[in-house]
């Protein structure tokens, strides 16, 4: 016989008790390791999803502009593919079409990696759908489909010449579905990976380019395994075309001039009919006797008389960084020009409509124009012949306001001089080309001008001017003044005149241009995706935090089981002590058994943890709102988490064993041999009263400190720490108090005892056992109540103006921006609304907001938002008020004394996802990819804006100057109109992909996510209650067994079965109430700061029902255990005694 053999023998002999302990340890380990595995799984699943959705792509270049599609092939990478990527709406054909907003249209080539070979290099009108898109529209191969996408336009739409009508903004593309690809590999491609499967439509790039009038263009380059020299190579490979620039030589400008004279001619000479009265005198001089205008003569004229290079932008306005680079590269050789179309120039008694005004810092311009000086052209038919220098000149013009209304404004100038329209001033190329206007032979041919145009105002003289001079400026003003009046975020220069060798200039310029300033910044999408895949919230820690009380409960159960085992083995221990075993040796024996059980239990728990984590993931996925959003969640178990969890479980388990066995030092072998148990020994320990008193006081004070700290804490970790810390300490304080009461109860002597009091006093006979049971129940009750307290529903005030909706019952989103004001009857007509609809729309108010697409910053996005979506609020909305009681928090967006750009975020988003507080900075990448300092100045509460960062529109436009249009609508409507407005707007804007939804739905979606988490945590609480019930039942059955003789005696003395049941039940009801009471009280106190801080509503009724239910279940379980226990033959026990 050896010590170890005895130990093993004990383990096998007391297998029932040990099995229970083993199960307890396994359960605790499963919960602990499982919580870590949930975190692992979320990270691992997001990681896998990222890798799957990005496929071979490591790096992407998406500058937000179009460039040559051949640029991709010039970059050093193992694999490269240029893509034309658009987002739009896919629609079935027919009278009642199904639509799928947010569909990605990818114009790809064979390099992209989708089977099809040469098809991808063709221009066939066919499209490959991925499974998700086909499923959402119910389409199959061979079906026809229509897409609505944002029509690409050179001229910024939010400028005077921008085209904004819906038919000018949306373009339809029709194609036949060639194949439906399964949702795997590159068919699932998403540049910004997310749990929702992307809806992709793949076209041959050439087809899409042709349809969208973007021949040879792409807006996305995907690279796999790029070389380190990527940035340098890009800089070298870029041309002015990639920048959207053209350096037009005289010869190049001569061609359109020639073409303009007879657009239908393809020859190199024009008859007199075509050129007469339409060319400058110096060109006229070159015409020979044949009266033919030869193309070569036009070129020669340009090279002699208009011998300059003109740097122009396809978008009419040259980007400010480009202007800076040119001025740096060319210095005094460069002259900036800015033109604007005036609605009217009035001077003296005459006026000219639709006249071009120019400003330039070119040397040799008329006068030396400063401030409000103006120089007017003098030509045949000049309307301002009588105007004298020093006289007032009025210029009327239109500029778009924040909602793109063209507001007529006037500027007054002083006439500096009039100048003859000749030489360099007689040049239509001052004005960049604008299709439909500058290429027309007469003003009456202008095609659907985007500005207010009245043909009746165009007089014969004006037509003659157009015929001869076309877009030649009729006035010049000072460049700074022009830029001040008409400059916009898109630029303040429309052309730069240069002289010299075009190639050299081009080369110098490209060397100076930093690709990053044009948005050409490589995004390490895979690296970023993997980083974002670490999740916005550490689910491992979150689950561990909420599992803490369940782990404590399982440890308490383990402690309880160990103590009951010790009680049962009292005589055995007594014998060992009596035969000379030291208490230390006995403790080593028992602890050895415990350690072995812990090791084995933890090992079993490690396996169970995988099942537990899988179940939790499944539960999360099933209860996640909006369908199968989390179906991608798979179990991922890292060795590190398992080792950490297993080791922690062992340490905690062994600690529990040590604690449970520490009573051995207080045992008297004599007492044990006489049949007393360890419980009797614990009950009789003197001096524990003082210890429990101190424990109670210190824990209560610590809990109060945590609660107070929680009220002032800002950070999410600090708040969570305060919550769990105060909860734990409060539980300890309550249980210490309960311990004192139990001990006092156990020592009571009652001259008039009642069955109930006797029963309650029984709980004090074995105070450790009782306190462990109460602790078990208290831990579970704490979790259930605390989680339930956090459970939220949309508050009644949400729809009020002061509530989280701002008083907007509806909102709408789209990928295709809106440029029109939906509050205007002109727009309603444009949208073909009938009278009834127009009346309805007139009663509603539409507030368009600007959106910079980015990562959803709300709890709906499991990825960490590295580039949060930004929404710009117009000034009118900011001053409208709402979103908070009394003073609107929106006004904070206009704070001036902020270091950085002021922003608002929702309180939940700030706390849980972005992990920021008021005063903190959020890094928001601007258009050039530079991190802009955006500072949180306030938090919205329970708002509909949980997915975005809100800034004032003026700041938005500084951050994203090239971002155009509105992609978010807030809709104000009377309650009785809400449904009709929703239906009407959805129908009218369906082609643009607008989806209109109630704001309450959005909030409820956020709440549903939160409540999904809480529901999962509540399951943990329910498991805890189950453990509590098990503990209670064990204590009950054990107590009855130990007191079987006593109970038998009572029965012999005439006590009925019912009375005996009540005697036993009273003890357990007492423990049940004690545990639930302590848990509830601790939970309510711990969550108090949360409610005081947020103004959230506690669902008292729900909470009451839940607790009532727990009590009833507990009582039922106790009653069943009593009935089962009292069925044993008690009189036999009495006889045995």
């Amino acid at each position: 016989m050896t010590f170890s053999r005895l130990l093993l023998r004990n383990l096998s002999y007391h297998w029932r008790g040990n099995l229970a302990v083993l199960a307890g340890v396994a359960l605790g380990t499963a919960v602990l390791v499982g919580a870590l595995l949930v975190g692992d799984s979320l990270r691992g699943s997001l990681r896998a999803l990222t890798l799957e959705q990005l496929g071979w792509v490591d790096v992407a270049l998406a500058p937000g502009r179009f460039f040559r599609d051949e640029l991709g092939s010039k970059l050093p990478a193992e694999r490269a593919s240029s893509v034309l990527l658009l987002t739009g709406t896919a629609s079935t054909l027919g009278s009642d079409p199904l639509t799928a907003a947010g569909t990605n249209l990818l114009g790809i080539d064979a390099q992209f990696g989708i089977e099809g070979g040469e098809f991808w290099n063709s221009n066939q009108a066919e499209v490959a759908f991925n499974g998700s898109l086909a499923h959402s529209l119910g389409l199959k191969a061979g079906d026809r489909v229509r897409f609505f996408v944002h029509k690409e336009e050179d001229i910024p739409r939010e400028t005077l010449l921008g085209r904004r009508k819906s038919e000018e903004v949306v373009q339809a593309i029709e194609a036949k579905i060639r194949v439906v690809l399964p949702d795997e590999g590159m068919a699932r491609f998403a540049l910004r990976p997310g749990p929702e499967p992307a809806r992709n439509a793949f076209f041959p790039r050439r087809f899409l380019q042709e349809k969208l009038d973007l021949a040879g263009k792409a807006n996305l380059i995907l690279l796999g395994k790029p070389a380190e020299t990527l940035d340098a190579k890009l800089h070298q490979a870029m041309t002015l075309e990639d920048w959207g620039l053209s350096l037009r030589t005289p010869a190049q400008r001569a061609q359109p001039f020639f073409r303009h004279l007879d657009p239908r001619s393809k020859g190199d000479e024009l008859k007199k009919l075509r050129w007469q009265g339409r060319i400058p005198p110096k060109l006229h001089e070159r015409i020979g006797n044949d009266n033919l205008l030869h193309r070569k003569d036009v070129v020669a004229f340009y090279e002699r008389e208009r011998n300059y290079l003109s740097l122009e932008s396809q978008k009419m306005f040259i980007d400010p960084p480009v202007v800076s680079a040119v001025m740096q590269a060319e210095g005094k050789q460069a002259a900036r020009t800015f033109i604007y179309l005036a609605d009217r120039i009035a001077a003296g008694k005459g006026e000219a409509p639709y006249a071009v005004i120019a400003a330039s810092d070119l040397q040799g311009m008329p006068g030396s124009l400063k401030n409000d000086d103006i120089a007017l052209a003098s030509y045949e038919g000049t309307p301002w012949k009588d105007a004298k220098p020093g006289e007032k000149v009025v210029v009327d013009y239109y500029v778009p306001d924040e909602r793109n209304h063209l507001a007529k404004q006037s500027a007054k100038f002083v006439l500096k001089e009039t100048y003859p329209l000749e030489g360099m001033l007689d040049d239509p190329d001052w004005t960049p080309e604008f299709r439909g206007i500058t290429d027309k032979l007469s003003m009456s041919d202008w095609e659907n001008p985007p500005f207010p145009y009245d043909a009746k105002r165009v007089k014969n003289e004006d037509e003659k001017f157009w015929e001869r001079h076309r877009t030649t400026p009729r006035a010049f003003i000072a460049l700074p003044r022009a830029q001040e009046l008409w400059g916009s975020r898109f630029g303040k220069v429309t052309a730069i005149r240069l002289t010299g060798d075009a190639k050299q200039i081009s080369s110098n310029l490209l060397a100076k241009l930093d690709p990053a300033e044009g948005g050409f910044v490589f995004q390490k999408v895979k690296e970023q995706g993997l980083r974002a895949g670490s999740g916005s919230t550490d689910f491992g820690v979150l689950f561990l935090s909420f599992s803490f009380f369940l782990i404590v409960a399982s440890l308490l159960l383990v402690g309880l089981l160990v103590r009951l085992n010790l009680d049962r083995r009292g005589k055995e221990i007594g014998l060992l002590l009596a035969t000379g075993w030291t208490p230390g040796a006995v403790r080593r024996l028992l602890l050895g058994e415990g350690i072995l059980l812990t090791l084995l239990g933890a090992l079993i728990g490690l396996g169970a943890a995988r099942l537990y984590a899988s179940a939790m993931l499944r539960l999360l996925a099933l209860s996640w709102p909006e369908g199968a959003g989390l179906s991608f969640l798979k179990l991922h178990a890292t060795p590190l988490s398992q080792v950490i969890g297993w080791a922690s479980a062992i340490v905690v388990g062994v600690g529990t064993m040590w604690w449970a066995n520490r009573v051995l030092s207080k045992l008297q072998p004599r007492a044990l041999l006489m049949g007393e148990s360890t419980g009797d020994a614990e009950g009789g320990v003197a001096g524990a009263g003082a210890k429990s008193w101190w424990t109670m006081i210190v824990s209560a004070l610590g809990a109060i400190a945590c609660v107070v700290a929680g009220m002032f804490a800002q950070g999410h970790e600090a708040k969570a720490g305060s919550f769990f810390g105060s909860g734990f300490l409060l539980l300890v304080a309550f249980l210490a108090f309960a311990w004192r009461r139990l001990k006092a109860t156990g020592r009571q002597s009652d001259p008039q005892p009642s069955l109930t009091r006797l029963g309650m006093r029984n709980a004090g006979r074995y105070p450790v056992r009782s306190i462990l049971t109460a602790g078990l129940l208290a831990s579970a009750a704490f979790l259930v109540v605390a989680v339930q307290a956090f459970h939220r529903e949309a508050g009644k005030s949400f729809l009020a103006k002061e509530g989280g909706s701002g008083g907007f019952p509806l909102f709408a989103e789209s990928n295709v921006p809106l440029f029109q004001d939906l509050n205007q009857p002109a727009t309603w007509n444009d949208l073909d609304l009938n009278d009834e609809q127009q009346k309805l729309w007139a009663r509603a108010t539409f507030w368009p907001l600007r959106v910079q697409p980015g990562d959803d910053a709300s709890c709906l996005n499991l990825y960490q938002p590295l580039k949060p979506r930004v929404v710009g609020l117009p000034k009118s909305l900011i001053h409208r008020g709402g979103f908070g009681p009394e003073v609107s928090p929106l006004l904070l967006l206009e704070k001036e004394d902020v270091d950085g750009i002021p922003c608002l975020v929702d309180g939940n988003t700030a706390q849980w996802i972005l992990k920021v507080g008021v005063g903190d900075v959020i890094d928001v990448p601007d258009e050039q990819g530079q991190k802009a300092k955006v500072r949180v100045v306030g938090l919205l509460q329970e708002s509909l804006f949980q997915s975005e960062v809100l800034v004032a529109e003026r700041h938005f436009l500084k951050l994203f100057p090239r971002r155009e249009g509105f992609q978010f609508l807030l809709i104000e409507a009377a309650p009785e109109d809400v449904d009709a407005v929703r239906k009407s707007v959805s129908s009218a804007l369906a082609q643009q992909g607008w989806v209109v939804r109630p704001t309450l739905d959005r909030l409820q979606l956020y709440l549903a996510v939160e409540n999904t988490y809480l529901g999962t945590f509540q399951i943990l609480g329910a498991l805890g209650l189950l453990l509590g019930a098990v503990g209670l039942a064990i204590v009950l059955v054990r107590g009855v067994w130990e007191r079987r003789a006593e109970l038998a005696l009572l029965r012999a003395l005439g006590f009925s079965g019912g009375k005996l049941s009540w005697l036993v039940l009273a003890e357990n009801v007492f423990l049940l109430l004690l545990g639930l009471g302590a848990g509830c009280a601790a939970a309510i106190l711990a969550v108090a700061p949360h409610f005081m801080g947020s103004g959230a509503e506690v669902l008292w009724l729900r909470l009451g029902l839940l607790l009532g239910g727990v009590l009833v279940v507990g009582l039922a379980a106790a009653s069943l255990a009593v009935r089962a226990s009292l069925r044993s033959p008690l009189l036999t026990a009495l006889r045995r005694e």
Partner: protein
Amino acid sequence: MSLVVQNLGKSYPTRSGELVVLRDLDLEMNPGESLAILGPSGSGKSTLLQILGALDRPTSGTFRLRDQEPFSLDDDALARFRNRRIGFVFQDHHLLPQCSVLENVLIPTLADDNVDRPALEARARTLLDRVGLSQRLDHRPAELSGGERQRVAIARSLILQPALLLADEPTGNLDRKTAHAVAELLLELHRQEQTIFIVVTHSVELARMLPKQSEMIDGKLAAWSGAGL
């Protein structure tokens, strides 16, 4: 003298005042001597036995065994003292149900690492042979009769050759015939081992089998009148 007990007193505090169980008790015994202590329930017999077995401490007085005063020892030394000097036989045999007969006898040896285990195993076998259980070495307590269990307990009490063998109602749970056999065995082994043997009993028959008897009266040992209890 090997066992010297002088002025031994033991009292317990109760709600109604101090309860004196042993009062200035004196006792002296040498190896090979034996004593049966009789007395009514609650007279303090078992208390005396527990103090002599170093399981309980006296309120006053001294107790020396082989010139060693156990209650001056610290807890570990006291446990060692109990292990090496004292053997116990209880009314309830207190065998470990999970252990075999042989293992039960060897249980006290596990308390000390510095023992000659093979020798002790041999001694255990010998003792079990002497108590007539050499054929039941691997049996579990549940497979033994009451008398057999008590014989295992006797063997266990002697495994480390204690100076003092204490028996508390060793035949109390046995029938008359078995009780007699167990008593004879105890006495025989006591003689063979030359221990000091004290037995506390209500059994006059057992008491008479010992050469010397005392009666516990008012917390003191007095000469036994020979009357039944």
